[in-house]
């Protein structure tokens, strides 16, 4: 399964992504944050350590998640990025919008 979701005791939604992060994951990604009643109240951790590719639709999904999660107040961490994915985040200035490591 390229996308796994679980919610831990702190109410943080952990989304693990592996392989290609592209439009094919849209439905699963959407379901992951739709499962809570109030997406803006939750915090999110997106673990990219298994991901090796990302296209612009992934950026669109992340931006949409940020909007649903409260915009500037959203608490979203993206972890385990490889260097290519980091470059994409850097070029698209996502470092200003998300906690990326």
């Amino acid at each position, binding site marked *: 399964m390229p996308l796994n979701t679980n919610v831990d005791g702190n109410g943080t939604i952990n989304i693990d992504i592996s392989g290609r992060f592209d*439009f094919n994951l849209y439905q699963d990604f959407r379901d992951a944050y739709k499962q809570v009643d109030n997406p803006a109240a939750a915090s999110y951790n997106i673990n990219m350590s298994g991901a090796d590719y990302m*296209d*612009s*639709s992934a950026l*669109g999904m992340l931006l*949409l998640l940020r909007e649903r999660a409260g915009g500037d107040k959203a608490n979203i961490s993206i972890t385990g990025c490889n260097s290519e994915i980091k470059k*994409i985040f850097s*070029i698209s200035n996502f470092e200003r919008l998300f906690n990326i490591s």
Partner: protein
Amino acid sequence: MFRDLIKKMWVPLVVSLFAIVLHASGIMAGYEILPLVVTIGVWAGFTSRWAQTNVADNEEDDSGEHVDMSAQVHQVFSEVKDVVIDDGETIRKELTRTKEVVHDAVGNLSNSFHGLSSMTEELHGSMLALIEKVSGEVGEDQSGKQISIQDFIQETSGVLESFVNIMVDMSKQSIEAVERMDEMGEQMDGIFALLVDVKTIADQTNLLALNAAIEAARAGEAGRGFAVVADEVRKLSHHSTKFNEEIRARIEGAKSAIENARGLIGAVASKDLNIAISAKGSVDIMLEGVRDMNENISTSLGQVSIVADKIHEDVGVAVRALQFEDIVRQTIDYTFPHIDRMEELFTNCVDSLSNTDEADPKQLTDRLQELRGCVVTVRDKWEPLFHKPVEQASMDEGDVELF
């Protein structure tokens, strides 16, 4: 015995005296080598010649050979005088020629150095202009503002960034549209559920109509009218079922159309970002290159200006060193009166001694007295003509720009 020695050695003694007087009168001060050589030559010549005749004198009777010896001495004096006059003339000529050669050479050198200096400055200016062109301005934009390579690359970087932003925005909006479409799909699924209910109603209606028709048949003639109604209701339920099917088919068509659109919009949202990454990488490399180039250029500019300054300085030193022509000219001019004086003094001495009978001690004394007077006269006469022209000892002294 002593008188005899004096009598025999008087000529070398006088020549010695003459040489000493020449030294003392300062003739050698400006031009040392040649008079010294002449003096030594004269002294050596006389001494050796006199030694020979002296040996002969000792063997022969001196009274008989005396007149001949005197004539020989006078002859030698006369020859020496000729040599001195001749040498003086040669020295003058050579010195004049030296003066001219040095003057011409220094003139050419001076022109060359000034040319070199101005060319160096021109070169420096050209290099500065070139460097400015390479590192900075590459042209003008429409408003006449200068644009540089660096500006251009930064502009490119900005364009790339907004391109990426537009792409990401587009993706986000596409995903949002897909979300709306999915919501539409959910609404349609709701309609399908309702259609199932409608179909159930139709089916039940059909069943009821069927029951009614059976009941009407059992009633016989009395139920005939009711049978017609039941049949109409059955027809209505069939219509309803048909409608239901049509609606379902239409909505399924819409759903599959939406599914198609969703796929298209998904494709629009999914754009490979590797192009942007490599473009961004290229721009970064270019910016780095321009930075390196600017650094190299400013280093080179520093080196060029150091070299140019050094050349300017060296040319200044060279031009200053060309003062030597002035010093050489004045030194040579200063030498001429010394040669004149030497000639006059020598001529006087030789002429005077030529007319002396060396056998007569009184005449000899008178002549020496005369000569001493002559030396003083000649020295005093020439002294005002001598003036030290240049006190400067080396070219590095002073900072005079000549010519």
